[in-house]
């Protein structure tokens, strides 16, 4: 027996080693499932040993796609998907109660060869994930690459883009992601699916088809009715996928029945398998009536959409949609105990954690440790404004502490009426070092959704996280079918370009517009206007390419299944790409807060105090500060964000307000603005090599600021209240779509009831100041450093990065070091 196994729960609690606590507390079933799960996220930027690409899906998809070559494009994709679901190998894991796997084996990750030729070539050159026998697999992969590469969504998109813009985008120097809709974030409409089930949706589609045929075939159509030829194809494709999805689920039902009747000897497990058989026969064909059915329905849909394409985020509000079933089964009808519900919920989280695919290098390292930004939304209010927290909210929070997965993570919609029992549960997750839930200010974000995208109040109250941060209603006209990560700029490049007349110092290419020789600038205003020109150019470029990607998506590669689960698309007979929802666009700003700090430093040292000239500054920056260390330290010591200092804070506020104003001048295909959303995931590390030296004192290669409105590491010297005061100067409704604040707290200070009271006071102050987001790391440096030295002893130690959490040992050392370097705030100081 190991030393840890001999320790009592109380001793482990005292030591703060919550991962051992979880192992002791969770049920034998959860313990088995948690330990059996394969990690699909990358460690640093490479996959874990043993993880292999699944070749069944691409082979089956391609086979059917080729056979259907004379069909309309959307029907071809529908038939290809149906062929996969009818034939891919399925399996049932020991002790599992929730079915549905992405891939034909537990250790496989999916590869979608129809999306992007770069991804395909990346795979062909990767020798870690090719399944055995390698030579045979490589031959298959090469054939698939040769067939798909020229007709991937990426090849079609790049061929249409203006050459200059395409080249600039592909360098990765100014943005992140690519304008390809099959790599998107899809907010799903659960009220539609849970109300009708897939059979109910098929019935609606049948009625639409009958109506269209009446218009087209039974009489001479009116001129505007010829569009029904297009709609007919779309409805037929939707129906093909929905019927195939039901068949796929029922294959699990039959398998469970076969095992139960022929092989299972344990009577308890036999009973479980019989229930699995009943459940998978019923959902998603029909609406769920029990918790095990609603969770199974939900998971099936998530897996099905990912067979169709890479859904890089997992917008969900599981307590809102599954809460009524928990209440019915556990509290009212008592046909499920809380412990049984907890087992189901824990497995529901694990099933999500195991989903993975082969992903481009740029995504692997920027999202190191996870496979996508799967932030689930908890809490908040109902449509009528009352508290939406329920027993399922608590069940999910409790399950999270037991299984300690890094994906999904939670974000909690905090509002003044939130029930105390749930808030304590939220705090317990944070205190136990999960790094989640992040805290979201519900009234602010509801107002924000109404301000930017005109969502009515009732729908705005239905918001979920579309990715890490941005709220999106999950309603018929509010749910956004996909958001492309491509609308992401590396904002600090605008500062670099303003200082070097649009020239990229890292790539040695002219990128931005010419805004003049900065060494000749005579006033701060000249520099500011040069920066404003550069940032608008960046926003326009990304908005333009993302808008084009959205508009052209349905023509390049329609998504029949995704379309079939939106009421809007079924009603209108359109592909999910059709921009007929209310809209929810935003531009993510990576590396944003360096701008205000840089401008403030120049204003103070060059234009106010005249200690240096612009020419001297440009010389020093060109040299990457080498040989100018004394001067660099002056710029480091200049006023910095996060200290409640109006000199620098008001420059930041002006920058925020000016980019917000420009957001209204550019429109997406739904007619909505492109508000800024500053945050960083792990890009504050990976982009460190893409941004040249800046006047805030950073050198090329130094890590960037880690949040969206977080101060630079070690720059916040006046405590947590000063940080909040600085951050509260931003208008969190009108100037940003959202913005991310990282804080580190002391686990020692926040122990026990007193710790909760201190944290609660902080949260109340944060909410009253109108700040939309804050998230916490609560692991001390001794533990983190020990985990660096002996990672095998800290398998489930989790930290918050920026917008997501990851197991600490799955991060590269540079990212680990940035977590350690963040200031630990003493609350109440």
């Amino acid at each position, binding site marked *: 027996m190991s030393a840890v196994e001999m320790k009592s729960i109380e001793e482990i609690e005292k030591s703060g080693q919550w991962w051992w606590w979880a192992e002791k507390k969770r049920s034998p079933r959860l313990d088995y499932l948690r330990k059996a799960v394969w990690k699909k996220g990358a*460690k640093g930027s490479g996959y874990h040993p043993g993880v292999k690409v699944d070749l069944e899906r691409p082979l089956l998809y391609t086979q059917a796609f080729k056979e259907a070559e004379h069909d309309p494009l959307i029907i071809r994709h529908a038939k290809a998907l149906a062929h996969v679901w009818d034939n891919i190998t399925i399996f049932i894991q020991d002790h599992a109660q929730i079915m549905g796997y992405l891939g034909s084996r537990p250790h496989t990750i999916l590869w979608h060869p129809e999306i992007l*030729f770069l991804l395909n070539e990346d795979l062909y050159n990767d020798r870690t994930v090719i399944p055995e026998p390698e030579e045979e697999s490589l031959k298959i992969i090469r054939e698939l690459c040769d067939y798909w590469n020229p007709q991937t969504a990426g090849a079609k998109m*790049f061929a249409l883009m203006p*050459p200059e813009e395409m080249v600039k985008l592909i*360098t990765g120097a100014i943005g992140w*992601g690519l304008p390809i809709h099959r790599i998107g974030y899809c907010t799903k409409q659960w009220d539609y699916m849970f109300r009708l089930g897939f059979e109910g949706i098929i019935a609606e589609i049948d009625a639409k088809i009958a109506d269209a045929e009446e218009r087209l075939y039974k009489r001479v159509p009116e001129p505007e009715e010829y569009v029904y030829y297009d709609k007919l194809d779309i409805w037929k494709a939707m129906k093909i996928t929905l019927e195939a999805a039901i068949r796929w689920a029922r294959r699990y039902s039959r398998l469970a029945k076969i095992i139960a009747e022929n092989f299972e000897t344990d009577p308890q497990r036999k009973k479980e398998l019989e229930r699995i058989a009943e459940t998978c026969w019923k959902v998603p064909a029909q609406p769920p009536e029990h918790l095990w059915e609603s969770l199974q329905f939900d998971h099936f849909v998530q897996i099905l959409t990912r067979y169709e394409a890479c859904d890089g985020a997992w917008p969900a509000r599981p307590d809102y949609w599954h809460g009524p079933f928990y209440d019915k089964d556990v509290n009212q009808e008592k046909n499920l105990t809380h412990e049984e519900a907890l087992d189901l919920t824990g497995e529901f989280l694990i099933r999500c954690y195991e989903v993975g695919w082969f992903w*481009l290098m740029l995504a692997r390292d920027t999202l190191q440790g996870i496979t996508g930004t799967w932030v689930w939304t908890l809490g908040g209010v109902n449509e009528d404004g009352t508290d939406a927290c329920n027993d399922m909210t608590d069940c999910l929070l409790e399950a999270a502490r037991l299984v300690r997965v890094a994906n999904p993570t939670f974000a909690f919609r905090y509002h003044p009426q939130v029930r105390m029992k749930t808030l304590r549960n939220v705090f317990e997750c944070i205190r136990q070092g999960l790094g989640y839930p992040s805290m979201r200010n519900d009234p602010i974000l509801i107002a924000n959704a109404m301000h930017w995208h005109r969502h009515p109040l009732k729908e705005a109250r239905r918001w979920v996280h579309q990715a890490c941060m941005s709220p999106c209603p999950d309603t018929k006209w509010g749910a956004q079918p996909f958001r492309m990560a491509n609308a992401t700029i590396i904002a600090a490049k605008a500062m670099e370009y303003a200082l070097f007349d649009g020239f990229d110092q890292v*790539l040695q290419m002219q990128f931005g517009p010419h805004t003049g020789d900065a060494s000749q600038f005579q006033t701060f205003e000249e520099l500011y206007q040069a920066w404003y020109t550069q940032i608008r150019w960046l926003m326009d470029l990304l908005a333009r390419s993302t808008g084009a990607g959205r508009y052209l998506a349905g023509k390049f590669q329609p998504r029949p299944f995704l379309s079939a689960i939106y009421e809007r698309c079924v009603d209108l007979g359109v592909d999910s790409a059709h921009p007929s929802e209310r809209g929810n666009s935003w531009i993510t700003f990576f590396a944003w807060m360096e701008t205000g700090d840089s401008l403030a430093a120049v204003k103070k040292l060059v234009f106010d105090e005249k200690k240096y000239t612009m020419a001297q500054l440009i010389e020093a920056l060109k040299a990457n500060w080498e040989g100018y260390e004394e001067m660099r330290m002056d710029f480091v010591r200049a006023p910095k964000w996060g200290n409640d200092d109006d000199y620098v804070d008001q420059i930041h506020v002006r920058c925020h307000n000016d980019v917000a104003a420009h957001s209204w001048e550019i429109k997406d295909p739904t007619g909505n603005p492109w508000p800024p959303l500053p945050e960083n995931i792990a890009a504050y590390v990976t982009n460190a090599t893409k941004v040249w030296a800046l006047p805030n004192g950073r050198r090329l290669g130094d890590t960037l600021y880690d949040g969206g409105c977080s101060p630079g590491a070690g720059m916040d010297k006046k405590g947590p209240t000063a940080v909040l005061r600085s951050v509260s100067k931003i208008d969190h409704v009108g100037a940003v779509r959202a913005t991310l604040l990282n804080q580190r707290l002391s686990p020692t200070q926040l122990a026990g009831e007193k710790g909760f009271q201190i944290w609660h006071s902080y949260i109340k102050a944060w909410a009253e100041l109108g700040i939309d987001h804050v998230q916490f790391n609560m692991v001390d440096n001794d533990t983190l450093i020990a985990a660096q030295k002996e990672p095998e002893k800290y398998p489930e130690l989790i930290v918050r990065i920026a917008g997501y959490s990851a197991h600490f040992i799955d991060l*590269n050392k540079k990212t680990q070091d940035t977590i350690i370097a963040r200031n630990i705030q003493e609350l109440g100081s």
Partner: protein
Amino acid sequence: MSEDWAKMRDQWLKGSIDKGHREMPEKACGKCENFRQHSASAAGDGHCTVIFEAGVNKVVFDNTDAASCDKYKEIDRIRTDTSEFMWDPTFRPQRQIGEK
């Protein structure tokens, strides 16, 4: 200038779509400090910061043979584990570059 950008795009598209299996020559662009990998693709494509063709940077790949290039300057490799993200180069493991 737009024709030059078009040329650069076409070179890149062709090279990336038909890339095939990479073999890394002894002296390869990917090992040169003047090489910048296009990090949005990670398929080993990039450009040279010192050689220009018709006004724009020359498109090269990490495995482009640099044996006859007079601008070739091998990077100074830093001892690190291969999961580490280091400057310079940015994507060391992808470039099949052994560690010193």
